[in-house]
């Protein structure tokens, strides 16, 4: 409860800050607030507090762990986006929108009731629709917002319909009660279609194939740091919700949903990676890369077991850290090359800004899963889980996907180190420099001490 009050309070506060035009230093307040949120999560550890009566939200360790992780990512994101807020007439609205979106995220990681899941998805998404379109003068930003809104509404309808059907089949919104109803093995067609519809809705949110079509356009059209927000914080909480739903409500339907999950995972891995390989636009390429990582996380979901939540936590954290680094660098490079997002804008970055080139290399190597960076451990955990659960073929698909991924991640590395450019050196702001260094160190540190994250939920 405290966490929820804190974040929404911050959101309201930021609305008022706009009223008195309190611009300077508001970023610090938000960052401190989010730090306090992490502190509260640590204080509540093992508390299992029920919020709003018995079956709405449950602050179990899973919820608290994901709450801390997404708050941490949000802090990094806020620090790297200082410029976005500085040059912004509606800075207070945008602060508030992001913070309200985080409230939705908190509901999503802690829900025990499918109605709360629905609310969470909506609270998370609606501010994002606005934020995607926040670059009002650019056509592609408007188009992206419109597309995201229409398709998002469509997907929510699927989710809602699924919730309704499940309610019809079981008479309950509570995910524990739903699970118990299916424990006998009797699954009615109504329940099955409800489950599939909910899966479709969730797949849309995490951009898993074949429901990923919105993602490249929206990611490309949105302002770069909003893309970063969507690719990291939003994706993390959406996957947490996905896991929470299927590990509780549909745990006794494993046989049914695993078939669908495995197909979705394989499709996602192949489609996203092959498409990413032919992209010349870095932002679009990162969008496809984000989809492909959703494929790996689907494999983790598929291998539902006692360790899955730890793997998912580790994977989302590692992936988000490298994404934040990559998008931050993209934003800076873009700003220094008149908005050019193509790979050629990265030419000779090792000379123009060695720090950015090195951190970008860390991020790319981590995303392609090459040791000693933590992205390797993330993929290793996923592959091990897949082989352990008898999905050898999926592990092989994953390996092929990783190899294709190396192709496009290395395009950037080659451009940065192998090609030269006449352009002037790039200055990186202090805060952004800090974020980049923190991301790089974290990517190495998480590889040396992976157990700290994987084992945190016991």
């Amino acid at each position, binding site marked *: 409860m405290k966490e929820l009050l804190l974040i929404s309070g911050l959101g309201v506060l930021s609305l008022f800050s706009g009223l008195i035009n309190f611009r300077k230093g508001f970023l610090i307040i938000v960052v401190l607030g989010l730090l306090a949120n992490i502190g509260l999560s640590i204080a509540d550890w093992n508390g299992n507090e029920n919020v709003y009566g018995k079956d709405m939200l449950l602050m179990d360790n899973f919820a608290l762990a994901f709450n801390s992780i997404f708050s941490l990512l949000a802090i990094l994101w806020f620090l790297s986006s200082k410029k976005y807020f500085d040059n912004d007439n509606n800075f207070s609205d945008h602060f508030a929108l992001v913070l309200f979106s985080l409230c939705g995220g908190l509901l999503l990681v802690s829900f025990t009731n499918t109605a709360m899941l629905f609310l969470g998805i909506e609270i998370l998404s609606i501010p994002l629709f606005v934020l995607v379109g926040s670059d009002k003068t650019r056509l592609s930003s408007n188009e992206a917002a419109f597309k995201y809104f229409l398709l998002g509404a469509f997907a929510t309808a699927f989710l809602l319909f699924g919730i309704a059907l499940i309610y019809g089949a079981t008479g309950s919104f509570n995910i524990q009660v739903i699970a118990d109803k299916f424990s006998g093995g009797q699954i009615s067609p109504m329940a099955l279609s409800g489950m599939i519809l909910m899966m479709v809705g969730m797949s849309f949110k995490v951009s898993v194939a074949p429901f990923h079509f919105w993602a490249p356009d929206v990611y490309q059209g949105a302002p770069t740091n909003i893309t970063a927000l969507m690719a990291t914080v939003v994706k993390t909480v959406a996957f947490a919700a996905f896991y929470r739903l299927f590990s509780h409500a549909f745990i006794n339907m494993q046989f049914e949903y695993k078939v669908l999950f495995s197909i979705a995972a394989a499709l996602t891995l192949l489609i996203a990676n092959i498409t990413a390989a032919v992209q010349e636009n870095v932002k679009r390429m990162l969008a496809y890369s984000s989809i492909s990582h959703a494929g790996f996380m689907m494999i983790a979901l598929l291998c539902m077991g006692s360790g899955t939540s730890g793997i998912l936590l580790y994977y989302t954290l590692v992936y988000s850290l490298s994404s934040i680094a990559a998008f931050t660098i993209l934003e800076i490079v873009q700003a220094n090359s008149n908005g050019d997002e193509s790979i050629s804008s990265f030419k000779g970055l090792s000379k123009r800004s060695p720090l950015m080139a090195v951190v970008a290399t860390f991020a790319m190597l981590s995303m392609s899963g*090459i*040791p000693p960076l933590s992205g390797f451990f993330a993929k290793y955990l996923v592959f*091990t889980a897949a082989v352990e659960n008898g999905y*050898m073929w999926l592990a*092989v698909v994953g390996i092929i996907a990783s*190899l294709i991924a190396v192709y496009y991640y290395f395009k950037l590395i080659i451009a940065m180190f192998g090609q030269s450019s006449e352009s002037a050196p790039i200055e990186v702001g202090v805060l952004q420099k800090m974020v980049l260094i923190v991301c790089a160190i974290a990517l190495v540190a998480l590889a040396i001490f992976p157990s700290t994250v*994987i084992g945190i939920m016991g």
Partner: protein
Amino acid sequence: MLTLLLILIPIICSGLLFIAGKNLARPLAIAGALIELIVAFVALNAHMNGHLDALTLDMPWINSPGIRFHISADGISMLMILLTSILMPLIVYGSFNKSYDNAHYLYALMFLMQGAIIGSFVALDAFLFYLFWEIALIPIYFIILIWGGENRQKITFKFFLYTLFGSLFMLLAMIYVYLQTPERSFDVHAMYQAGRQMDVIEQAWVMAAIFLAFAIKMPIVPFHTWQPSTYFTAPTPGVMLLSGVISKMATYGMIRWIVPMVPAGLENYGYILITISVISILYASFVSIVQKDFKYLIAYASIAHMGLIAAGIVAANTQSLQGSLIEMLSHGINTIGLFFVYDIIYLRTGTSEMKKLGGIRAIDSSFAFLFFIIVLSVVALPFTNGFVGEFLLIVGLFQDQPVAASFAGLSIILGVVYMFRSFQAMMLGETNSLTINLPKLNIQEKTILVVVVVMIIAFGVYPKMILSITEGSIQNLLQGIQ
């Protein structure tokens, strides 16, 4: 502890080089390489006196998936450590004849690689081995990408993708065996036990997947297509590391992770691997003969020799394993020598095309003499280190696969053809406008070639000093699989 020190010294050195400026690059690099060499000899001393605990470090790392930080060095590892730490000062010192841009970064990457390579030689945990194996790939990729020659972007990428492709299948095979271990552990003994308990078909698949990774790295035909162009474009220190040391990671990996882990697969399907290796030997030898460029010739000759080593390891008896280890050592030393000869010629004339050169012996007879001894060792003449290795290899292979052994024996004759052809073309004959003003070898170049030649003869005349390092470990290994 000593093994940990052997991993850490190069890594610390690498860190220092990253911070240090260009002026400190050379002294720091040579000092680091020499300190490592000294520690390697201390470790060798500990090994010879049987102080295994001084070399071993075993502590938990990642608890839940059963990954331990377990490193140690038996005779086989020890020999590989020696090879790496003997070659490293030579490679570093050899690079002083040319000034590289940002040399401190180059040396930093080289040391990072040395640390990873040593790590893979001492790792007794399959996961740790894989980790070091992969880490070694990143520095060499950047070395070639930044300091390489023409067309390096495409070539390095192909190299990287190829090796990663193989490695990932190895990882999958390792995970498969790991999941068969009763207590979920990557530890070498648990892996061996689990591997041996699998049925023959399973073992064959695991063997194939792991062998793929090693066959690409060595390389063996038909997985070699990355190699000649990569060797050609790589800067000299890079290519020396690649051919001298990195390829040995693969052959070492076969001894450590294939032979003892899947003995039944090797017993029943090993003949396939031997056939591939022998085809590789013959193919590469014939291709070497028609090469026009000396650097390409060394590259293909390297494939031929690695094929022989691989065949010997698959045969897995005392002679063939001893032979393969000695051949690994001598191939490392010889290729460093050959690439250094190439470097000397290329820096002076700007070409390594053999037809354009000639008559160097008349200008600088001591250079020709030193080169000739290296050539003799490559063609396995008695009293050179090449002879001991190839002789033992072919004897050992003959016990297992007589037909394959006789074909493999052809490699020596073919080796004579291509090596002598190259010697003839470059050193003998008429002096031409390119070679007439060739400066004589300077002290630095002479020192390196003399060290190489001394090692060639010393190990050739008295191979027992190598055999005594590895003997016990090979017996242990073979007892385990019988």
